[in-house]
């Protein structure tokens, strides 16, 4: 099988490196970024960590390195040593088949004098490191950064947070005017804007954020099935309020069939979309759904890909999807265009781990339960873990006494403490009562 990266006309050693790492298909992010970087354009990429973006910039940059020149050509900075180490691993792995390509890493906590000594003899082609150490080396006159044609700032917002931006600024100042600048960041904070404006003339703005992020307008509710009839529960949830268009997601075709039959038997107009519905029929159903002939749709994950309907007000996850990514897909159907949407996820006993996994992905669930045809607040699943022992407030006097008596440990000391606490409580109650009475008398007096 040929490597699909060959479409970018990369050098053979890069392709070898990719194939050796088992990377054969470019991710959507890589599809977008690689051609732009190959052209030599500057890029501002907004992306989450782990979207395959490291390869997206590393592949074209290494590709453009001219190994016949003995000068620094690419400088890559990362805010932490660990991130720099990761970048270095990726780069060396890609360039394994080209020994002439020198990649060096410069991070804090290593022997600077030795690095300076080495750099006096030979300059690397690619520099990867933390901003502080790279700047040190440049200022020491060891690293000849003025020859670089590409500069990468990875995790720019984190760099900003850690206070490395002045260092980056100083490094950038030593670079040639026409440097290709690549800035990657999960968010583009306001404070980063002056820096971007200063160094990037006409950057290509690429949003690398995955398309399936749950919109903030979606309320995620969690309802425990707990042995109730799930079909009935879904029917009740669907009919709780007036729904504009409600989508019910299931995992299998069989359960889609069962649920549709059940809801139809209840007299609801339900459309069913799954892989076994023939394409022509599916098209017709989709058209009817668009025309709002149906108010309720039961669908499986794969079939749901094509559903892009405006105004879905409710999504019910009848079953927790096997892949958490599908959850985003499902829930992302509602709450579009800033409209409010509700997503209800049903879970059964034994599925706590799956719910926990989703919560780990950053989804915040509000526990609810159905009571007398209304959704009311449910109990927190983890209430036992968050439980705190009951504590009776103790006054300073009693606390002091406890300390003293515990030290002395005379017979009956616990009883003594208890008695004193009770006496104090009784006294306080009396005082409170008296104050209350006085207040009411006063209020009464003012009436006349």
């Amino acid at each position, binding site marked *: 099988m040929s490597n699909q990266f060959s479409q970018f006309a990369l050098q053979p050693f890069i392709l070898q490196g990719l194939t050796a790492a088992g990377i054969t298909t470019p991710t959507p992010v890589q599809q977008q970024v690689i051609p732009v970087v190959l052209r030599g354009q500057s890029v501002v990429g907004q992306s989450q960590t782990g979207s395959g973006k490291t390869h997206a910039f590393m592949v074209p940059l290494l590709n453009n390195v001219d190994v016949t020149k003995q000068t620094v050509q690419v400088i890559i900075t990362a805010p932490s040593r660990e991130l720099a180490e990761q970048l270095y691993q990726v780069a060396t792995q890609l360039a394994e088949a080209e020994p002439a390509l020198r990649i060096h890493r410069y991070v804090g906590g290593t022997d600077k004098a030795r690095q300076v000594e080495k750099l006096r003899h030979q300059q690397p082609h690619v520099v990867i490191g933390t901003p502080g150490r790279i700047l040190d080396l440049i200022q020491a006159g060891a690293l000849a950064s003025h020859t670089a044609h590409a500069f990468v700032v990875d995790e720019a917002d984190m760099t900003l947070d850690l206070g490395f931006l002045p260092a980056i600024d100083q490094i950038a100042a030593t670079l040639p005017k026409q440097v290709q600048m690549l800035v990657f960041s999960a968010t583009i904070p306001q404070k980063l804007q002056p820096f971007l404006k200063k160094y990037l003339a006409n950057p290509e703005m690429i949003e690398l954020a995955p398309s399936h992020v749950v919109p903030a307008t979606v309320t995620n509710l969690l309802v425990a099935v*707990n*042995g*109730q*009839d*799930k*079909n*009935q529960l879904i029917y009740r949830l669907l009919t709780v309020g007036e729904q504009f268009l409600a989508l019910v997601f299931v995992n299998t075709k*069989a*359960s889609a*069939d*069962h*649920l549709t*039959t*059940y809801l*139809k*038997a*209840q*007299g609801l107009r339900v459309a069913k979309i799954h892989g076994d519905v023939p394409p022509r029929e599916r098209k017709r159903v989709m058209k009817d759904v668009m025309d709002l002939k149906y108010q309720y749709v039961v669908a499986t994950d794969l079939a749901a890909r094509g559903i892009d309907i405006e105004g879905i007000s409710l999504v019910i996850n009848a079953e927790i999807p096997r892949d958490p990514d599908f959850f985003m897909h499902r829930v992302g159907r509602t709450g579009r265009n800033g409209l409010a949407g509700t997503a209800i996820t049903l879970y059964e*006993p034994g599925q706590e781990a799956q719910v926990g996994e989703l919560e780990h992905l950053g989804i915040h669930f509000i526990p609810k339960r159905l009571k007398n045809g209304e959704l009311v607040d449910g109990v927190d699943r983890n209430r036992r873990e968050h439980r705190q022992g009951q504590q009776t407030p103790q006054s300073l006097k009693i606390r002091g006494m406890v300390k003293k008596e515990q030290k002395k440990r005379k017979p009956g000391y616990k009883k003594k403490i208890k008695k004193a606490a009770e006496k104090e409580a009784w006294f306080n109650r009396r005082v409170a009562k008296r104050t209350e009475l006085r207040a009411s008398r006063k209020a009464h007096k003012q009436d006349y």
Partner: protein
Amino acid sequence: MVQADLWWPTWQTLPWKRQALLIHQISRYFLSPLLAVDDTVRVNVTYFGQTFTTYDLLCGGEWLRFIPGARHVLLGAPTPLPTAWQALLGAATLSPQTAVDVSPMLVARKAVPSLEQVIGRIDLTTQRFSGDHFTYVPVKPAVLAALQQAGEQNWPATVSGQGVSLHRQSDHHYQVAIRQDWQRPGLIHGLHRYGFDLLTEHQYEYVMSGGLAQATPWGNTLPAPLPRYVPNRFGLTVPVARAGSELIAEEWGKSTALQPPLAAAQVAALSPWFRTPAPAFATSTYRKVAVIRLD
């Protein structure tokens, strides 16, 4: 025995070992010691893709099914009737809607004609009887003669002998029933003898509807063509063709005689909420129930 374990929805969440233990205890303490429990079977009932797990006990020739109790379950038809129910139940006499607690119970899987009393079952090969032996001994010759006759006729579904009826229950067994010339008090007295009772209206409605507030056990509409048996959430045998009403503890009866194909007006009788003012005793059927009360 924890009371909540026998109630919906806790019952559904119990591990099978716990369920089996509870059923064993129930069979010991809530069934008459005069009748032995001959068999216990675990049953999975699938209703619109949702599985309900319960147990069947063979007791005195009849299969009894364990039905978990339910709290605050809505039974009966609401007033005014929801629009979705109008088409099916518009003209019928229905029980009014109330919310009740229904205790867990062991209920007969099948309704029996009111002039018959099931006493046990007999093995075709060994001719061994299991069930209520005291009642069996006087009718034993009649049963054996009827069994002989059934063998000659290649084992039909029902055989009648002198004062007894045999109903084929499995490939190897006939259910033995005595034909009784009794009225309603006699029937109730006969049931009480073994600690059984007639279903109350609430119990009947819960058992038939599965505790779901819908027009029929199937839903608010009926499948077309109508099947021979109406599906039930608890997996009870509910044939569409009925000889007459079903007797309950109250004076009125539930359902009425039906013979498919059904006319539009007759369909309402399939609803658990349907009432018949004065059912004819001779053509009626009944179900025995043993209610499990822990308080």
